[in-house]
């Protein structure tokens, strides 16, 4: 494996992006607990290195599909935080005019085909986008993000089979945070998950999903492979959902221990992992990282203010956009 080196600027950029997602999600949690946000939210805290490492390795015109836990993917692919917050609050200025909400952010300008609230719901769409790219010869790669819960859905294997038959430029990125909602993966997935792809001729590998450098490097390699016309691949990023399944999932001891959570948070936090790498290689000092955090925090505060002040859509909007 000859994964590419990561230059200092790139690592700092990825650090900033991860901090942005972390603070964004903390802000979402805050809005929700203060009853300022309608609906639910599924937080990405703890998994930031995957979205950021993958999306930094993509071209801006490459496609992604996302999931119910999708804020991180959208932000990593270039979504603006003010319009993200506006969408989460159901405002007209949101990415989907408030019609999609937390689980359905979509944006053609950043290649985001849409977050999907059906588990594995975007597997077909992602593979279809890869089909278009191959037919149109535009060199675009599609990344299909999904959690390990989606491994229980048959459609994933149907489309992986076709992607392999037709050598489509798609990367299936499985974020294995170990819990299908409230059920441990060991109760849901038999055998070796990484043996599933090779059965279709889809090369499969795993990566430390807490290390943004590792995720970036492997994605670059898989994206280049896809662009060369060598077909799909499957990447399992091992990670951990630091928070509950959704913001309201507070008492979690019945499905996982506080000790387990604490170990991941203290030893495997992707931002801490990146921080240590930056400091030990003298890429930046603590003060510089502190400045980045302060800058991002200010941006987030401004974006929340924008979203809170933004108007709701006019009720006439309800019947718009049903048909193109």
């Amino acid at each position, binding site marked *: 494996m000859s994964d590419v080196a990561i230059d200092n600027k790139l690592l700092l950029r990825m650090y900033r992006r991860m901090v942005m997602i972390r603070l964004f999600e903390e802000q979402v949690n805050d809005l929700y607990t203060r009853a300022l946000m309608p609906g639910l939210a599924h937080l990405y805290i703890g998994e930031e290195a995957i979205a950021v490492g993958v999306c930094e390795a993509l071209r801006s015109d490459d496609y992604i599909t996302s999931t119910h836990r999708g804020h991180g993917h959208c932000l990593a692919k270039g979504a603006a935080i003010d319009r993200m917050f506006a969408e989460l609050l159901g405002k007209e200025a949101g990415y989907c005019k408030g019609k999609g909400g937390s689980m359905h952010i979509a944006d053609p300008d950043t290649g985001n085909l849409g977050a999907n609230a059906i588990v594995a719901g975007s*597997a077909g769409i992602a593979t279809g986008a890869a089909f278009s790219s191959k037919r149109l010869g535009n060199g675009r790669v599609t990344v299909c993000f999904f959690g390990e819960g989606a491994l229980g859905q048959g459609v994933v294997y149907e489309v992986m089979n076709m992607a392999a038959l037709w050598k489509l430029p798609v990367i299936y990125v499985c974020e294995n945070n170990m819990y299908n909602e409230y059920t441990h993966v060991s109760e849901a997935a038999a055998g070796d998950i990484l043996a599933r792809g090779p059965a279709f001729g889809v090369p499969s590998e795993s990566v430390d999903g807490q290390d943004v450098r590792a995720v970036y490097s492997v994605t670059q390699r898989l994206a280049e492979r896809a662009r060369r016309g060598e077909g799909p691949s499957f990447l399992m990023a091992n990670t951990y959902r630091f928070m509950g399944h959704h913001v309201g999932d507070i008492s979690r001891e019945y499905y996982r221990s506080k000790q387990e959570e604490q170990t991941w948070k203290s030893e495997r936090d992707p931002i801490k992992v990146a921080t240590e790498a930056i400091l030990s290689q003298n890429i930046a000092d603590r003060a510089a990282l502190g400045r980045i955090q302060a800058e991002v925090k200010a941006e987030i505060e401004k974006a929340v203010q924008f979203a809170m002040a933004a108007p709701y859509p006019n009720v006439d909007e309800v019947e718009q956009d049903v048909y193109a």
Partner: protein
Amino acid sequence: MPETAVAVRELTLGEAVREALAEEMRRDPRVFIMGEDVAEAGTAFKVLGGLVQEFGTDRVLDTPISEAGFTGIGVGAGMTGMRPVVDIMFGDFAGLIMDQMANQAAKIHYMSGGKWKCSMVLRTTLGATRRSAAQHSQSLHAWFCHIPGLKVVMPSTPYDAKGLLKSAIRDDNPVVFYEDKMMYKLKGPVPEDDYTIPLGVADVKRAGDDITIIATSSMVQVALGAAKLLEEHGVSAEVVDPRTLWPLDEKTLIDSARKTSRVIVVDEGYGRYGVTAELAAMIQENAFFDLEAPVKRMGAMHVPIPFSPPLEDATVPTERTVCEAALALCGK
């Protein structure tokens, strides 16, 4: 007809479908076909024969037997610059693809605030009396009609099939296009020129004064046959074909109901919570005070479609049962 006039040639409904596809594929390189046995086999019904020879296997693509998967690929391809025509051999397989159609294709435009579009056509079949039993004989188009974001097209003649399919392919929305398996051999005039029929325009297939028979797809020919029988009883029946169930040309249907004051709705789907219920309700909401009798609904019997021929034949409306219902409605 003067001797110099060129007679309009006749095609079967299957040939009209194939001609529409071929013309659209020549016109637009983004159009492609995918499905089970669509290439060399030309589908189980032999409707697509010859297309793979002209367009190649890149554009007429045999898939594995993975309806949900390749329908989903069609959705994604339709969002990103292609115009897929997805072939679902039997309409009964709707259950296998429903998430892709109802939750993905139908909703992406709305959920994205109008930013993504899904331009795809799903061609599939309906209709009983082919001795195919309960899992290959249903008419389940009402399922798709129920979902906002989808359009549903139901041609009843070769002419309509060609013109409507071309419009469906050019449409920027997901369109479900139903073909009656028993009508593939039905012949009718089809011009050679590039005509389209807009979605959402009903057609009066036969003008009449005493009763309106609103009929869809497979039931249009049944209604026309019933109208002939009714003539012998001195009843003049008007047969109106909505042609598309969504968008729905309510005005033409209501106008006919007002004119004749008696209405039967015939559709091969199940009656319970089905197309006939919707159309009958729409008629009574808009033409109640012009009606001389309650709107009559006729559809498939509410049973799984049986195999045994006499049993199966009993499940669907026929010229005779429609005629009898019309006579009863007219007090004859």
